[in-house]
């Protein structure tokens, strides 16, 4: 075990997987010589050479499109979008091909690639650098959507994503890239895709969250007394999600709060709330409440703090559900 922040854990995952499997390559803008703008791919080009860690021209659609071709033809590409806000430039390739090639070819071809993208807000970045596009990508049926909330899961989920037979978009909450360290095993391990994690147990209320919002939820819980009885679930794989863990928990607590940074309307919280009422309405003691970003474009950074969910909003949400 070594204490690492998320950037190091992701780098470590890439390093070990590339050592173990020669078909894995990394491609993207500034990923080689510069080691990526957040240094997630630092040192990889020195270790594996310019043919396996490739600084591409500035063209997201071609990065993903080429990664699809590479993947169909036996390679295991890990493509980087410099920020998830620039994955839109590659949206057509993701939606039309990465997500559909398996079905279109009746399983003859598949595109087992990983698209990594620093995501979400909280670092006072320029416009388009703070997007939380998980709901868009959930609508790319055939694609898996993953978002870790800490270093340990980051390494295990990235390794699982690389080894997964399906295309995965791996959204990295950049606010917590270096915010805290966790014990991370030195050897490779996987955290299974499609499995949520019960972070803390309770009987009164279930909170479902992911990405950098998970830490925020934990911060909010610290302000409540220890007997508050709140069960916190980290969704981890946004799609296909682990509804069973959620339903089991809500059947026990009878109350649910969903916290995410992306806009509220048609966000993943809406889907989770719908499933809860479909599958355990009679267990519910209160409406399912969402604490989310507003239904507006992610603002330029002068207003960022007002956009992002905060501890007060989470505590208000908890109170609303508990006191209904």
């Amino acid at each position: 075990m070594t204490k690492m922040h998320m950037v190091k854990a992701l780098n470590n995952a890439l390093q070990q997987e590339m050592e173990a499997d020669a078909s894995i390559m990394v491609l993207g803008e500034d990923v080689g010589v510069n080691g990526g703008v957040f240094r997630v791919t630092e040192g990889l080009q020195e270790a594996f050479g310019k043919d396996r860690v490739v600084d591409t021209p500035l063209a997201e659609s071609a990065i993903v499109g080429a990664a699809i071709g590479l993947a169909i033809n036996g390679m295991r590409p890990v493509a980087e979008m410099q920020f998830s806000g620039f994955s839109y430039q590659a949206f057509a390739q993701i939606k039309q091909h990465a997500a559909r090639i398996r079905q279109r070819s009746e399983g003859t071809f598949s595109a087992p690639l990983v698209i990594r993208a620093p995501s979400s807000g909280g670092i006072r970045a320029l416009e388009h650098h703070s997007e939380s596009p998980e709901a868009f990508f959930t609508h790319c049926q055939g694609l898996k959507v993953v978002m870790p909330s800490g270093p340990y899961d980051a390494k295990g989920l990235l390794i699982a994503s690389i080894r997964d037979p399906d295309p995965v978009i791996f959204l990295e909450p950049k606010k917590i890239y270096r915010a805290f360290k966790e014990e991370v095993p030195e050897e490779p391990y996987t955290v299974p895709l499609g499995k949520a994690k019960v972070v803390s147990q309770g009987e009164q209320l279930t909170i479902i969250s992911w990405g950098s919002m998970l830490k925020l939820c934990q911060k909010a819980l610290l302000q409540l007394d220890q007997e508050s009885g709140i069960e916190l679930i980290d969704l981890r794989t946004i799609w296909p999600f682990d509804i069973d863990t959620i339903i089991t928990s809500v059947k026990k607590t009878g109350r649910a709060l969903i916290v995410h940074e992306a806009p509220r309307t048609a966000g993943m919280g809406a889907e989770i709330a719908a499933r809860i009422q479909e599958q355990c309405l009679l267990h519910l003691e209160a409406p399912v409440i969402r604490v989310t970003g507003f239904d507006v474009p992610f603002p330029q950074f002068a207003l960022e703090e007002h956009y992002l969910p905060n501890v007060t909003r989470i505590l208000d949400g908890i109170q609303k559900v508990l006191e209904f």
Partner: protein
Amino acid sequence: MQRFEVEYVQVLDTEGHVDTAQMPDLNDDQIKQIYHVMRLTREMDRRLFKLQRQGKIGTFVEARGEEASEVASAYALRPADWMVPSFRESGAYLMRGADRVKFIQSWKGDTRGFIGDEHCRDLPVSIPIASQIPHAVGLAWAEKIKGKKNVALVYFGDGATSEGDFHEALNFAGVLKLPVIFFCQNNQWAISTPRSKQTASATIAQKAIAYGMPGIQVDGNDALAVYKVTREAIGRARDGGGPTLIESLTYRLGDHTTSDDASRYRSEEEVQSWQAKEPIARLEHYFREKGTWTDDYGTWVGHEVAKEVDEAIEKAMAIPPPPPENLFNNVYAKIPPVLVEEKAELEKEWKAIKAEREAKKEGAP
């Protein structure tokens, strides 16, 4: 088979000697106007860079080294022409008369810095690489439809020429024969990616040939040459001659942005070799050669631009952050009812925060 050559234009060599055959129609007052704004841009850069380091503004993008390319090209435009920037075109904004205070305000992450008047023909900064290029095509197209003689000039980097939007836009403009000037700031780098890894073409200018328009290379650190080629391209566009691609050869002397550290990927020698070809000194050499330079004039310009930037910074720093409800303004022309409730939630929270802050202030000794 069609054969082609790419013309390269330089008026001033690095010592400031003029190629008189190439000299554009500019008098010394005009050249001094360009020089003044180049100095202003340099000073603005220097000061905003410092403010970023002090945490007073957000991520900042320096234009250092590219002042001739930006300012002299923008000088060739008329006010009614469209200027479509990416994010490094401080010089073009300042040349076009951008309000200095608002210009700084926008680097505070405050969109109110982009509020323009009814004559505004400068688009706001566009961060997604190359995405603004098709907009210039549409702006120019509308001018053509309206029977106006105005043009659109769009700036983008060498890196942008790898994006689909660049190619699609040039193709459109070629097919529709639109009055657009595609102005490529080839500053040799796209973050850590050198021009040589961006395209296998010998030049960026030659990409124009494939889209049926003239392409030309210009020494982008030579303000007179930049003015000359831009002026000619604009003239052709106004007269119905269609688009032009200009490749301006310049150099990003600073880091990519304040979040970058260029020493990780490029050599100090390379930077120094370009420092020697730097555009402001180049114009000073020109004035000296011509005998129209005095050190007093240089010092005076320095004082003027420092004062202008000082005053603007002071005012911009005094502007309080935008009110939170700005999140909801201008998302739609009229706020839809379904958003009114969210806005009310936010306003309620803001009231509580303000009350708490007030209470704290009063409680303080």
